[in-house]
């Protein structure tokens, strides 16, 4: 087990290195520069700025420097969005806000999505199943800003005299409700579909027949015998999805004006704020790698037949 984890960590380091190099080269290959805005500065200013931030050197030298600093825990400073603020500081202040909303979102998505999936599988072919299918297909196909807008319209003042929740995130519990609902809706629908498919498969297995022949009650058959066998595809999806959701949704954070990390993923690229692009990318990549490792370890817990050390070879 320890050997397996060690191997995975080593692989994670290699993966991260590749991600860093790829991002670094691609980011520099994109035309544009952080210094271009409405008023184009003079060439002399641009040259001076490039020199100051080391952008005048060849990309490979820049990368080498970046990696060297990174190993010492220095992810550089923002060069445009929050000028001269350390990237690490930006991530450590923004991430908790996104993560808090993300955790609530993913928890409600699991608590609602998985049982709904079970229900749909159990009632397959009935109107309950059809209704859930319509809702989930809608949830999966609707873009996030549509969900957010609908929620805002229905519950935050779109209807005359009916305003339960604030439109702008201000840290009060009421202001958490709509962002969490909007952020969790997609994973909830996706999970529900995934659970339904996996449950249909396991409900038709012979051990379910055995469980019924034993005289077990439906609840036990569904939640003990069928669900545990259906969990593998569900956690496979959940691992990376948790990383994505906790890092914040760009759309949801923009719509509700949440000062979270999600917005930085996109706006750092628009602004060519190279250190932030690198910082956020590495953070998300590392997060996803860790989640995937957790998922693989969970497999073993869920299904005793899975042999990690063999599968790792």
């Amino acid at each position, binding site marked *: 087990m320890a050997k397996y984890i060690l191997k995975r960590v080593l692989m994670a380091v290699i993966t991260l290195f590749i991600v860093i190099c790829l991002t670094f080269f691609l980011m520099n290959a994109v035309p544009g520069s952080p210094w271009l805005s409405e008023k184009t500065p003079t060439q002399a200013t641009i040259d001076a700025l490039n020199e100051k931030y080391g952008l005048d050197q060849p990309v490979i030298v820049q990368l080498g420097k970046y990696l060297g600093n990174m190993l010492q825990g220095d992810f550089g400073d923002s060069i445009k969005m929050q000028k001269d603020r350390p990237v690490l500081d930006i991530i450590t202040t923004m991430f908790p806000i996104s993560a808090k909303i993300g955790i609530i979102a993913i928890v409600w998505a699991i608590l609602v999505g998985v049982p709904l999936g079970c229900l749909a599988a159990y009632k397959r072919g009935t109107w309950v199943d059809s209704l859930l299918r319509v809702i989930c297909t809608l949830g999966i196909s609707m873009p996030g800003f549509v969900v957010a807008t609908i929620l805002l319209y229905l519950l935050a003042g779109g209807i005359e005299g009916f305003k339960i929740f604030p439109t702008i995130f201000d840290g009060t519990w009421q202001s958490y409700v709509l962002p969490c609902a909007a952020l969790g809706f997609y994973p909830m629908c996706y999970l529900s579909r995934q659970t339904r498919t996996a449950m249909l498969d396991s409900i038709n*297995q*012979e*051990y379910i*027949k*055995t*469980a*019924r*022949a*034993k*005289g*077990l*009650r439906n609840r036990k058959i569904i939640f003990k*015998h069928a669900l*545990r*066998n259906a969990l593998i595809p569900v956690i496979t999806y959940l691992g990376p999805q948790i990383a994505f959701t906790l890092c914040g949704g760009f759309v949801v954070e923009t719509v509700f004006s949440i000062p979270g990390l999600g917005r930085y993923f996109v706006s750092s690229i628009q602004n060519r704020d190279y250190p932030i692009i690198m910082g956020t990318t590495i953070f998300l990549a590392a997060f996803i790698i860790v989640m995937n490792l957790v998922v693989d370890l969970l497999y073993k817990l*869920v*299904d*005793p*037949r899975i042999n990690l050390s063999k599968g790792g070879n």
Partner: protein
Amino acid sequence: MEEKQKTGKLLEVKDLHVSFFTPAGEVKAVGGISYDLDYDEVMGIVGESGSGKSVEAYSIIGLLQSPGKVIGGSITLEGEDVLAKSKEEMIDLRGNKVAMIFQNPMTCLNPVYTIGNQLIEALKAHDKKVSKEEAAKRAMEMLELVGINNVEKRMKQYPHELSGGMRQRVMIAMGLICHPQLLIADEPTTALDVTIQAQILELMKDLQKKTHMGIIFITHNLGVVAEICDKVSVMYAGKMVEQGPVDDIFYKPGHPYTMGLLRSMPRVDAESYERLIPIEGTPVDMLNPPEGCPFAPRCEYAMKICLQKMPPYVELGEGHRAACWLRVQEQLEKEKAGQADGKPAAETENKEAGDHE
């Protein structure tokens, strides 16, 4: 332990009809079968795939899956009408009074729970008051009873760590843990290799003697029937074509289908040049079953009447009856001979049996 209830029948099935309502139409999977089973008796149900033998057994235990439905007849277990029971009562019945074991032990145990967990669960489903330690003790006793050693270790193992024969033993232990009166075994040895098959059969015979339960043994293997059963019901296309004590079925088969089955079975005493004789033709299309005797299209003795009317049962001996026009005809001839001797004729409606080709 069931000594006091030894009187009366354990199970009586009367004119049972089960249909599957599929989009393509109604499939009459079981079309009116009747039999009874005593305590301490083993009955084999033999037939080829799709003959309705499993469907019939599933309706006893209330495990028919939609779109299957019992549409007629009655099932009486220890004097109680099974078909009138509520869902809750059926849950109480399953695994308690009636247990069932299945064909494929490789897939019938839940792969993610330990053997012990699954055994204890079977017991706790019907005995809510039993303590954890007591349940574990009972589970281990059951494992020992079915010939598994090293039980404490086995309790903690997962199904994939056990061999097929061992898993079937676990299935049997699980079925018997609540001391059922009736055990339905749906091809319990089919998926096992021959040596293991023999061991499992031996075990079941042994357990049956110890517990005096009734067993319904579903199989398509006549060798297994000869080994374990007291009586046999032969099913074809949802109908019971012949029924009788095991010796009668083997030595005096009354229905051409039974004869065909016997001829297609390998025998140890056969001469080396003898070939197995298959039953020609294919099983009936259950969506459009033929009129008359379902076996008629494949039957070498088929007469005109066979294609028009389902034959009635003819008593061939004590507890031995077959549904075949040939036997009806024989009986009529016997009666005619009897009439000449001064005995009155019975069953005039069977007269039409005479106009064969």
